[in-house]
């Protein structure tokens, strides 16, 4: 049995159980796996980007591990009290031992009590669990999170409405009939659609609204819930629970509510399972026999099993409830398909995950937006195209046809916009389809592949997979160099990818190869980022300009001031006027005299300063525009350090002058013309590789223009 249980990954999911409250009170209906392991989730041993898993030379891990547990409970845990439950403890211990030995079979205790193998889960009796896991109405459609050390139980309980229905009745008949027409077409085939998004709350097809009222026996079921039992690592618990609750637990229970409301599904399945259990108990059947039977007969049990298997290894669960029409449901905890920055040496490793700053979910304003797929990206399928197409065909949903079309049209070398333009399709619907493929882990979005781009071996690639990957590579590209030697070549020195292909005819194959490598997280694009670099010559030029303007101004100012000072009377008059309120004819007070003297001194000083500034300015060498400002070693520039404009979106007055001054330096008309357009990309965050696509220009031409700016850019390359 144990061998069928998938290895517990970081998900920490131990078991999934269905518990209901019926006429007979709370009932523990079903759980899977039949005998879950209680081991804590496995610790990932790798950190950062390291690959070495060996614990050579006496690992300190074990010791440190026990050491840490000391720290965790602060050294005081409840001492085992012998007198706490004098009789129970040993008995329970017996249980566990016996269960482990032959947990599959029934047996009788010395006192004649019949022990049924499926009436214990972990160290608890299911009769205890069923009472504590049927939360009151206060938890209806709310998160229920309870921990019984070391297990955590999370669920989203669904109660029947006070009016005895499982869903709200549609408000008015008139409205209904009008709706039917419209929804008929969609309802017929659309019932099996991914209820993922449509499941916002109960959206029921009006036709099926009455199903629950046609005399079906509800068995007095007033609530049900699928409980997820977890044992995540403590430091990850909160996050894991949140993810699994939002994406799996809530949706699974909502889907069941839907099925219960429309077809009394949960009760019918539960009743069947409970009857089978009852019968098997009488016949003293082994647990494995019963579980096989239940899984064959009940689609709900099979769904619970499938969800358990998929979610515990972080895969997508696809389940189908055999209601009429059947209800399909796909569940997953979404995973990010790339990393922006490498995990640090104290963070858990995520080897094999693609590392790139090319985030396809960034809107026009540069903010992250999970609903907005960038149209300048390309679609890269994560598996064989024919295999994915076959799978989608097998799903046979409304979306199958368009998805297959989308897969057929999209190429990793073409941006969505280019695909849409060449095939005359609507780009926004193409993006929606692509996003669907990405969400369901069939594809990722990458900057379009191009033979002129550079690709390097990803610092996060999972070399532990090299042996198997080498074999797969050989199969996919029999004539290409071996995987290790190709990676070695790529990693030795970054250069445009086309230089690796022996001839132009090889390029398409080589692009396929790079697609294969990116898919597996082996390589990543080396992208170019730039900031505007202002050399001293330019800075001086701008400063000189500013100074000359200031002197111009002060000259003018002086003139106007001296003009006004000539008519001192008027100022005196005005000041006198102020005093006139008190005494117009009075002679100047001492204060006024002092004030006038002060003003005069100030004016003198200003004039003197202006004269000095003008003299200084006259001494300053006139700025000379040399061909290469970066190597202008003139003496007057020595004290000026080069300057980097951090973000051309928000520039100061001076910075804008620098940019304007630089514009004058470019001789090529195209360079001149594009400078103002391109400057916004020189912020260190936007890859220069994307400019051609974003500006809708030829790649080669764009790079030509960028090269003409080269001297005035600080360039850095990273993924």
């Amino acid at each position, binding site marked *: 049995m144990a061998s069928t249980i998938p290895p517990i990954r970081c998900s920490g999911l131990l078991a999934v159980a269905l518990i209901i409250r019926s006429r007979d009170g709370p009932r523990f209906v079903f759980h899977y796996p039949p005998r879950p392991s209680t081991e804590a989730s496995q610790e990932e041993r790798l950190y950062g980007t390291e*690959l070495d898993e060996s614990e050579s030379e006496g690992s300190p891990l074990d010791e440190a591990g026990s050491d840490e547990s000391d720290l965790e409970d602060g050294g005081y845990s409840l001492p085992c009290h012998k007198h706490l439950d004098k009789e129970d403890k040993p008995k329970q211990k017996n249980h566990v031992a016996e269960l482990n030995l032959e947990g599959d079979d029934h047996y009788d205790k010395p006192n004649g009590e019949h022990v049924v193998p499926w009436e214990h889960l972990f160290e608890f009796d299911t009769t205890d669990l069923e009472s504590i896991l049927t939360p009151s109405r206060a938890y209806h459609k709310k998160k229920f999170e309870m921990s019984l050390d070391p297990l955590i139980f999370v669920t989203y309980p669904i109660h029947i409405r006070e009016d005895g229905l499982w869903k709200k009745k549609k408000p008015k008949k008139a409205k209904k009939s009008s709706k039917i027409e419209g929804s008929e077409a969609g309802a017929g085939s659309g019932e099996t659609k991914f209820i993922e998004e449509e499941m916002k709350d109960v959206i029921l097809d009006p036709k099926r609204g009455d199903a629950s009222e046609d005399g079906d026996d509800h068995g007095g079921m007033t609530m049900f819930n699928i409980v997820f039992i977890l044992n995540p690592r403590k430091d990850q618990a909160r996050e894991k629970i949140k993810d699994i609750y939002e994406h799996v637990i809530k949706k699974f229970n909502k889907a069941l509510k839907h099925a219960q409301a429309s077809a009394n599904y949960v009760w019918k399945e539960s009743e069947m399972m409970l009857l089978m259990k009852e019968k098997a108990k009488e016949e003293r059947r082994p647990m494995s026999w019963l579980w096989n039977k239940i899984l064959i007969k009940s689609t709900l049990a099979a769904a619970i099993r499938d969800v358990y298997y998929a979610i515990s290894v972080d895969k997508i669960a696809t389940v189908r409830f055999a209601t009429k029409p059947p209800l399909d449901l796909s569940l997953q905890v979404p995973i990010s398909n790339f990393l922006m920055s490498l995990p640090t040496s104290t963070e858990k490793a995520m080897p094999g995950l693609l590392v790139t700053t090319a985030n396809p979910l960034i809107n026009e304003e540069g903010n992250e937006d999970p609903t907005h797929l960038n149209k300048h990206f390309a679609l890269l399928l994560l598996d064989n195209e024919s295999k994915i197409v076959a799978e989608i065909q097998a799903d046979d949903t409304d979306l199958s046809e368009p998805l297959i079309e989308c897969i057929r049209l999209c190429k990793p070398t073409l941006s969505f916009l280019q695909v849409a333009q060449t095939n005359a399709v609507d780009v926004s619907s193409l993006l929606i389809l692509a996003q669907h493929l990405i969400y369901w882990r069939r594809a990722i979005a990458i900057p379009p592949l191009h033979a002129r781009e550079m690709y390097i071996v990803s610092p996060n690639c999972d070399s532990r997979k090299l042996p198997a990957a080498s074999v797969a590579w050989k199969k996919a590209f029999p004539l290409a160099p071996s995987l290790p030697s190709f990676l070695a070549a790529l990693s030795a020195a970054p250069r445009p990818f086309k230089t690796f292909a022996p001839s132009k005819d090889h390029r398409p194959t080589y692009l396929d190869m790079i697609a294969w490598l990116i898919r597996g997280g082996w390589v990543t694009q080396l992208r170019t980022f730039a900031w505007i670099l202002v050399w001293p010559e330019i800075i001086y030029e701008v400063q000189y300009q500013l100074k000359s303007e200031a002197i111009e101004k002060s000259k003018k100012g002086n003139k106007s001031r001296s003009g006004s000072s000539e008519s001192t009377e008027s100022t005196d008059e005005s000041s006198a006027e102020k005093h006139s309120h008190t005494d117009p004819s009075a002679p100047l007070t001492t204060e006024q005299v002092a004030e006038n003297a002060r003003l005069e001194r100030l004016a003198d000083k200003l004039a003197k300063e202006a004269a000095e500034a003008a003299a200084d300015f006259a001494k300053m060498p006139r700025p000379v525009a040399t061909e290469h400002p970066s190597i202008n070693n003139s003496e007057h520039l020595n004290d000026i350090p080069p300057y980097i404009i951090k973000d051309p979106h928000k520039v100061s007055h001076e910075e804008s002058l620098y940019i304007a001054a630089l514009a004058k330096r470019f001789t090529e008309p195209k360079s001149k013309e594009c400078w103002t357009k391109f400057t916004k990309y020189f912020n260190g965050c936007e890859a220069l590789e994307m400019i051609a696509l974003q500006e809708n220009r030829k790649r080669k031409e764009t790079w030509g223009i960028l090269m003409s700016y080269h001297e005035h850019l600080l360039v850095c390359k990273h993924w």
Partner: protein
Amino acid sequence: MIQGIFFARFLPQRGTKVVHQSPPGCIVAEPGVDRPRFFDFETMGEYIIPRQGFCNRYVTICDPEDKYRILGHPVCIKDEKYVRNEFMFNFCIVIGVEVDMHPYEAVVRRLASTFTEMEIQNRFLSQEDLSTSADRRSIAALIEIIKEDLNNYNECMIPVDDANTINMKLFPIHRHPPPVKSWHVPISKMKFAEIIDDTWDLTMKKVIAQIDGIKDVRRISHDADVALDLTKIALQHLLYYDSILMLDLFLFGNIYAPAPEINDFIIDKDGMQDECSNYVYINGPRLPKFYLCRLFTSLCTSRTIKEWLKMHLDQGFPVLNYVDVRRFIQFGVIKGLIYRVHKYAVSSQYLASLVTGQSVKIEGGDLLQSYTDGCHCFDQITAERNIGDAKIMDQLRKFPPKGDVEIIYR
């Protein structure tokens, strides 16, 4: 922060009841107190004093509004002297859902164990109303003090009666540190000399004395005359308390490349450029910070430090005259601005043997063979085999057939 604390009991005639609470009225209504309760206690009662099967363990539950989390440890003491032969109680702490609950686990466990012990000793809980108050503190006062002290001082030391004291402290729970590898280089984050004293572990003191940001773990072990595994344990302790960092072994043949975080340096986030200047410039004239930007951005995946220095020298910038290159690189690595590009050897033959599962000794392959699966960087080989880069390359070249071993930079 503890929002509330309460003591609940199962009363045979009345069910689960809150006996004492602090602050008043936070769990159940109290005469004369008008304040909103945290949650409806009736709903939560079954998790405060659950069925016997769930007692004597740490139990937590969130309220339906998902605002508060109740941490408790229901205790059930069986004894014939009690009505129904059992006595059930729970000391619970209420915290916000978003608060890290782990430090409080020990507190709740401690409350349960102490009061269980005291109940068994002198029926401290069950006879609360009968005993005279002179020689003991009231439970109401106790929980109030516990809450206040833990919230204000993160610890409490409260004498309860002649025999019992409650001593508790909130400990932050750190993550388990990554394993220490022999080729790592520890660098201290604090001045050990100032905090070390005679009570410190001798081995730890020997190891700490060798931490200089240059020596790798293996050398520290050697120079400190401490066994390698003990050295690693000592270092892992320091890592646990976040008092050291682990870096790579700095050599001029190393390759470093910029990471996207380099942008933080260029835009001078958190005054990083000043911090860097203070750390890396050697005595003498200080260069404008622009040069630091240029030094970082000119690192790349195919340039060793030596080649990088030469490149700058050729461009008329003698880096070594101004900058302590080791400290410069370390600054970049610590801040995550740059990352080390490691060297890995891959033997196709060895990979093939791993696939088939036949770990045949390849003729001519020597001790290094097990390193050629692409998962062991040269630093590791250097540290474990005590040979340098050139010699490793030499030995790898001898692997037959010729050209079998490839070097991947990653």
